[in-house]
């Protein structure tokens, strides 16, 4: 349970006042490793007849080779195009024909594949994942088809809309100098069109190894039965070791970096700023205060920056703050950042917004924050964390990534409490590091098109 804190009141009196204690969850965790190196996490919960199945491979955008931007994501698509015993389209039909849903997604440090289904389809899902872990069908026809599909995905999400790729694709090249951290993870059309079946075969052999993967299963399962099923389907996936992970570290900034670009479809200005934060894995205790800091600054109308910039100064119309370029604080390795994103009114002054951010961050670092303000932010964060884990699939995905990156899937149960234990001094100290000279920012100049 969270440590008790003294209370302050800002609003009218209330009849049933107690500061909401931050409740823990107690999802059980079973971990084991198959002879082929596949790490497995089981977390049973029989409260609803559904299961979540997640397979993560420890390869993401940062690992794709130069000249092949977007390849990790393109390869994710190819993993759905049939495998040893499954024709093209079979995966989709077998999951949905069992009442389930599927997807996959490509992140900076990993790629996930997942299903959520009625629990009577658990063995089917394990069969499907094991089959493509043994080998997808990589053909020229499927590759060309999925290059076309990915190009349409990029057009929908980036090229045909305002603020496309802002800031997750547009800020990393300002902040980082090396290809793994700085390049466009969706990929250039030229690189995507240059991709070959041989590239895909090589990528699979190198990264999609049993020893480089984690399987997590959550929900309506019996642990002994699930162990038997996992053994049955994954036990004979050939052993291949995990490749050694390259060093992606980069030095912190020592001088401010600032870029602008015109977005022909954007009607209004916007800006995103980022500061490097401590290593989320190696120095979790130092990292966590930044996760809280982002919420203190931007979570809701009562947060520092929303109150100041949106309500009082009216120099911004929308604000968000988060850890990690893809918005998830607990699924990313070093190097990563705290980001602030602001959307401005017509003719808005980006410099003024950044100066005000500096001022407010400075005030937080200097004057600190009332216990009441920290406690309410932490209570809201607990709600968000608990809500995310209510869905069996969210739990499987989260535990899989915690296993892969930290060997600690049970950390999921502790996150609300650990967030609640961050102290005022730690938040202040974190705020003190958000200096302009460590900041990278990117400004969107509206292109005037309607």
């Amino acid at each position: 349970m969270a440590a008790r804190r003294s209370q302050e009141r800002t609003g009218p009196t209330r009849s049933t006042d107690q500061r909401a204690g931050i409740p823990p969850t107690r999802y059980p965790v079973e971990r084991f490793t198959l002879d082929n190196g596949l790490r497995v996490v089981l977390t049973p919960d029989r409260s609803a007849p559904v299961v979540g199945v997640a397979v993560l491979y420890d390869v993401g955008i940062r690992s794709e080779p130069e000249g092949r931007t977007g390849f990790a994501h393109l390869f994710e698509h190819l993993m759905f195009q049939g495998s040893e015993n499954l024709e093209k389209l079979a995966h989709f039909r077998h999951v949905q024909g069992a009442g389930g849903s599927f997807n996959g997604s490509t992140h900076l440090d990993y790629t996930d594949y997942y299903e959520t289904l009625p629990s009577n389809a658990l063995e089917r899902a394990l069969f499907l994942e094991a089959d493509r872990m043994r080998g997808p069908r990589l053909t020229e026809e499927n590759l060309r088809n999925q290059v076309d599909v990915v190009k349409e995905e990029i057009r929908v999400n980036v090229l045909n809309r305002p603020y496309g790729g802002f800031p997750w694709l547009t800020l990393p090249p300002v902040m980082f100098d090396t290809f793994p951290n700085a390049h466009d993870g969706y990929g250039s059309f030229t690189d995507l069109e240059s991709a070959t079946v041989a590239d895909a075969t090589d990528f699979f052999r190198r990264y999609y190894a049993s020893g480089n993967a984690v399987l997590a299963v959550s929900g309506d399962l019996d642990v002994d039965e699930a162990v038997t099923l996992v053994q049955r389907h994954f036990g004979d996936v050939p052993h291949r070791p995990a490749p050694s992970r390259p060093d992606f570290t980069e030095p912190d900034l020592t001088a401010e970096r600032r870029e602008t670009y015109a977005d022909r479809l954007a009607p209004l200005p916007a800006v995103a700023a980022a500061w490097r934060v401590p290593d989320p894995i190696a120095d979790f205790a130092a990292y966590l205060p930044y996760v809280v800091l982002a919420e203190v600054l931007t979570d809701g109308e009562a947060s520092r920056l929303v109150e100041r910039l949106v309500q009082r100064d009216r120099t911004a119309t929308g604000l968000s703050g988060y850890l990690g370029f893809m918005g998830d604080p607990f699924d990313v390795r070093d190097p990563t950042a705290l980001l602030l994103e602001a959307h401005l009114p017509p003719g808005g002054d980006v410099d003024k917004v950044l100066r005000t951010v500096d001022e407010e961050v400075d005030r937080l670092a200097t004057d600190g924050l009332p216990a009441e303000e920290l406690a309410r932010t932490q209570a809201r964060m607990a709600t968000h964390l608990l809500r995310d884990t209510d869905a069996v699939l969210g739990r499987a995905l989260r535990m899989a990534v915690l296993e892969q990156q930290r060997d600690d899937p049970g950390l999921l149960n502790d996150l609300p409490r650990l967030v609640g234990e961050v102290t005022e001094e730690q938040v202040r100290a974190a705020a003190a590091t958000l200096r302009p000279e460590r900041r990278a920012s990117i400004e969107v100049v509206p292109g005037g098109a309607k």
Partner: protein
Amino acid sequence: MTAETVRTLPPLGPNRPLSVPPQAERRLTNGLTVIAVRRPAVPLVELRLWMPFGRADLARGALLSQTLLSGTATMTSVQIAAELQRVGGGFSAGLDPDRLMVSGAGLVTGLDRMLELLAEVLTGATYPDTEVATEADRLVDRVQVAQSQPAHLARAALLRRIYGRHPYAVQTPEVEQIRSVTAASLRRLHADRVHPAGAVLVLVGDVHPERALDTAERMLGGWKGDGHPVDLPDAPPLRPGSLLLVDRPDSVQSSLRVALPAVGRTHPDHAALQLANLLFGGYFSSRWVENIREDKGYTYGPHSVVEHSVAGSVLVAAAEVATEVTGPALLETTYELGRLASVPPKPDELEQARRYALGSLQLGTSTQAGLASLTSAYAGNGLRLDYLAEYSAQLTKVTVEDVAQVAARYLAPARGVVVVLGDAALIADQLGVLTPVETAEST
């Protein structure tokens, strides 16, 4: 490489039947219906409150939803937000053509407080001048950004085409309309329309249903105001005609939309139409997706869905396709609709869709948030969660003949209203060889 062994797909295990969670319902003396559902999985409670809001002035309604939480006689917007945060809570308010909706979630230990704060704004929102002015500016900005989004522009054009002079035809206010809204008019609109009569509050989570109802009654019993029923005319029947091409110069994709007739959840054709929609484009393993994405590579995420509103239902199919294949994409779309409307599906194709529909019900009811949204949506159609069992039974009974019949009745391309938003200079000729085209400027 491994030696390939032939492995066969494991059969499905026995199905666990759909179970409806414990719930309770009460109609308070002020006319508010409260439904509480127990799902104790995580120590949270989900809240959904909707109030009938049909025919409200669009700009005023939109701005009211953005300022409902902006202050009361005793609390500022920051205090309201801070007090909600203290119990892990947060509210957001939104508007659709039928309803004003307040949604939120928080730690279940804070349910009393969340409801107390909800009552505070429902009975005492003051719409302070400064906050209203700020939110009006923000709303104007958001409308401008929406107007640069192709999906928004295509939807707006489709709604105008479908609904003509019906109130559903326009669902986004004009900038000038927003600017002319006064704080006083929001106070009047609140007094006229933010009423418990006819409203439904849904609470789902780690609650004891009867006790949650008691809490709701205690906190919201003092919310007064009689609703005067506001009737929306029935939505007009679709009027198929020329394809409407909305010009968006330099667009790198075309937004293809097809509207088709549909029926509500209580209509006898509902279950069969849901399955027919799945076969066409309602899930990934549908004919449309397998054709224009997995075979042809024209698009990323084509999808079709039956949308239910108070005044009528409509089936909308949507795809963003590459500019150079806009004509071919329309051709395949028309082909797949026509094939389903003309030739009965194969039994195994229907079984696959049926299992998907039944499984989706199990997945959708397995979280607090999913249950809350479903309970609230059902209540909007006068239904309760026990409808799940009835709907499941209907899905189970649908035959190949039923699907063929509803497909001919609702999914025939001859009945469709088609709108395409894209670069007219590049796509008008592609479309013109397939169907008569009428071109409009983007607004």
